[in-house]
């Protein structure tokens, strides 16, 4: 077993240099201002996803700061009730829909999955660009609305009837519902791309049982996205129709049902938590493997845990609704299902600990973040048992205990691994190392700040403080704990500032990384840092779970792809044997235009249902432009019979 360093440029032969130049020419992204909107390569779009999602993370974090100032003092007037309600709704909606899922699933998988499976671009690259622009425009729409006093104010779940037509005047709830539509479309698009990329574009030899755990995690998430997002698409559309179209889905007076909304919402809303956390575990598996210097212990168990979490996630949505009065037999079922989810999560944690216990643990910044993940996430898992048990949940539900619980689970399960991932893959993306010292400082500040902020929330919740209150009376015994929480926020704030300074500084002055600074085993490290637009000079083949560690001395490479087109190799789903070759489309402006047209239709439908009907016309025009057949590739296909004629 030995690490195969990717071939440095200097050692390239004449023929290889020529081939590289040719690939560079074929795969280059267009230049210039207009060219920026035409880009379709997954690394370009992936970086945009990361930057955009991080910006939303910062904005939502600032909103949280304002809320912490408000809650630091009882009966405070820093924010009015109206503003506070908008702030916490914007914070929750942004973190869930514009940061967590886009960052953990879309951003990470779009950038990394094609590299990890060893192909040249993501499947459906134009759809990928379209999904990014929709996500961006949806977020911009949401914040333009917020800045013009139309920020959603009904909570990130927007329960009816509070968000319904009778109690939520104006357009605030409509913009929330439309934000959901934007993120749904973009999430579903990425899910399809990832599934096709993973199942059809893997490097030869990467059979199902050799897929890196990161890719497995994102694959399961993609499946969950496809099964869960339609539910919220349905509920948010019904909400919008009730509000603007005069339908009666949620009107109890004529047999509509306010609980129907909650069922639909949580059918999505619970899997949503796992959409955020499974990519986190995927990152943890990757970092633990690399920094324990051994193959991960219990690969099969980890994969099966991911799959079973994916299944179980759909069976426990009702534990968000125990307080609505569920029949006892149903309560028992959902309690059992909720506790059962601890089994696969526990299995994963034990396997990671076993990996570290039998390996050599290298304590670099990414590993510190993962260790932080263990402390925080396990705590979140433990408080999860409290909310899974019906009687206890009836006491802690909708109190600050739950706020503490899900911040431990989501920040622990997603944000800690995310900062680990950013530190881990930063050298790959930029070609430069982050500062180790600054990285550890920001880790410790975040770790301490996080616990100071969120641990007291357990206590204040048990002392009876409900969620989503804009203020509280002075004599309840909540003041001191709230002030401690607010102080913790300052630590987190500083930590993120230091992290950003670290990124900013390292972009210019960081040490050069080289192709594989961590001596890791997955395929993204086989190419240069940053990767060229064709990803790999020679498409790799795979001989084991950690492609680079397990590579044979003379590991073969893929040859025979066309050099005059964006040609990729397709392989069989199960065993990844080469199957054929396909040609990917090049850069084009149409996805951007289609996204603009779609945005216009969605925003117009906030004001009138006609928005969709009339808005469909420009969408159709841009789609026709998008799919208009191009002569050259069509001729090439006929000639080469990539798609053999019947």
């Amino acid at each position, binding site marked *: 077993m030995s690490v195969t360093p990717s071939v440095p440029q200097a050692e390239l032969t004449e023929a290889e240099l020529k081939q590289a130049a040719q690939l560079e020419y074929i795969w280059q992204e267009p230049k210039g201002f207009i060219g920026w909107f035409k880009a379709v390569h997954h690394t370009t779009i992936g970086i945009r996803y990361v930057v955009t999602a991080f910006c939303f993370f910062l904005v939502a974090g600032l909103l949280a700061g304002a809320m912490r100032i408000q809650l630091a003092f009882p009966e405070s007037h820093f924010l009015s009730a109206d503003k506070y309600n908008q702030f916490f709704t914007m914070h929750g909606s942004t973190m869930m829909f514009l940061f967590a899922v886009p960052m953990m699933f879309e951003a990470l998988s779009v950038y990394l999955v094609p590299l990890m499976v060893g192909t040249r671009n993501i499947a459906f690259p134009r759809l990928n660009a379209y999904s990014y622009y929709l996500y961006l425009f949806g977020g911009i729409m949401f914040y*333009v609305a917020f*800045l*013009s006093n139309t920020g959603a104010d009904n909570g990130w779940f927007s329960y009816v009837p509070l968000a319904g037509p009778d109690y939520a005047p*104006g*357009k605030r709830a409509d913009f929330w519902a439309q934000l959901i539509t934007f993120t749904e479309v973009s999430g579903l698009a990425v899910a399809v791309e990832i599934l096709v990329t993973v199942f059809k574009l893997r490097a030869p030899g990467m059979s199902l049982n050799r897929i890196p755990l990161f890719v497995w995690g994102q694959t399961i998430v993609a499946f969950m996205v496809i099964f869960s997002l339609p539910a919220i698409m349905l509920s948010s559309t019904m909400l919008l129709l009730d509000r603007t179209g005069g339908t009666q889905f949620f*009107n109890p007076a004529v047999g509509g049902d306010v609980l129907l909304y909650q069922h639909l919402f949580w059918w999505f809303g619970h899997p949503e938590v796992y959409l955020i956390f499974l990519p986190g575990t995927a990152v943890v598996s990757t970092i633990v493997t690399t920094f324990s210097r051994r193959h991960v212990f219990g690969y099969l168990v980890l994969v099966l845990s991911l799959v079973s979490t994916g299944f179980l996630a759909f069976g426990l949505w009702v534990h968000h609704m125990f307080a609505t009065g569920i029949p006892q037999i149903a309560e028992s079922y959902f309690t059992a299902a909720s506790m059962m989810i601890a089994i696969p999560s526990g299995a994963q944690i034990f396997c990671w600990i076993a990996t570290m216990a039998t390996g050599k643990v290298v304590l670099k910044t990414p590993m510190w973040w993962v260790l932080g993940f263990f402390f925080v996430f396990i705590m979140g898992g433990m408080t999860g048992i409290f909310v899974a048990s019906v009687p206890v949940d009836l006491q802690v539900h909708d109190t600050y205990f739950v706020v503490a619980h899900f911040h431990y689970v989501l920040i622990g399960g997603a944000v800690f691994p995310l900062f680990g991932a950013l530190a881990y893959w930063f050298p790959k993306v930029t070609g430069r190392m982050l500062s180790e010292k600054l990285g550890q400082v920001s880790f410790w500040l975040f770790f301490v700040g996080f616990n100071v902020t969120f641990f007291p929330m357990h206590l204040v919740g048990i002392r009876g403080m409900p969620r989503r209150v804009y203020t509280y009376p002075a004599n309840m015994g909540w003041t001191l704990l709230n002030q401690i929480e607010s102080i913790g926020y300052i630590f987190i704030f500083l930590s993120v500032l230091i992290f950003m300074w670290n990124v900013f500084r390292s972009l210019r002055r960081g040490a050069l990384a080289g192709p594989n600074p961590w001596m890791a085993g997955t395929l993204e490290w086989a190419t240069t840092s940053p990767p060229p637009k064709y990803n790999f000079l020679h498409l790799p083949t795979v001989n084991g779970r950690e492609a680079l560690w397990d590579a044979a001395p003379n590991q073969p490479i893929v040859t025979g792809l066309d050099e005059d087109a964006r040609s990729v190799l397709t392989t069989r789903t199960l065993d990844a044997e080469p199957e054929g070759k396909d040609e990917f489309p090049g850069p084009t402006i149409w996805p951007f235009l289609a996204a603009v047209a779609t945005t216009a239709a969605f925003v117009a439908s906030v004001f009138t249902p006609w928005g969709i009907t009339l808005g469909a016309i420009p969408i159709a025009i841009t789609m026709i432009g998008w799919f208009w057949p191009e002569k050259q590739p069509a001729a090439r296909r006929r000639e080469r019979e990539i798609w053999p004629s019947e």
Partner: protein
Amino acid sequence: MIPCCISCKREQRVFDPGSAGAQIANGTALNEVHAGGAPPMMDMSQYESSAYAVTEGKRLYNAFNCVGCHAQGGGAIGPPLMDSKWIYGSHPQQIYSDIVQGRPNGMPSFGGKIPDYQVWELVAYVRSMSGQLPSDVAPSRSDQMPVAKAEQARQKEHPADENEQPVQRNAP
């Protein structure tokens, strides 16, 4: 910028109307036809452009039992409010006077009871019933038995006196 300004007004939620708005409506006549003092210096556009104020008007319409006579706008004991016929004029100031002064054959006077701003909220809602307000400000359907189209979906009615200005008297 323009959509921002429009939406700022639409989303305005004024909870404390200030001392001017909280003044008890005193039955001042606003129209030459009726006796009374000077018209109040009210900027009613802030009510007609705020979705919250209109919705409050709708809530008050039920709370003060306007429903009892006017039903949900279709009229019963009292005249309908969703059509184009206005016995005492269709202008906001005239509707204001109707509410504040009361009218013969059963319309009670709310003057001296409710504050000025609530009257204006009621006026705004009453006008939304015949489609006079923009659809993004007028209320959507309510959580009750549907008896008519939602206010925001109604066609704008055109009362006969739509283009006349109510004659206003100068302050005495």
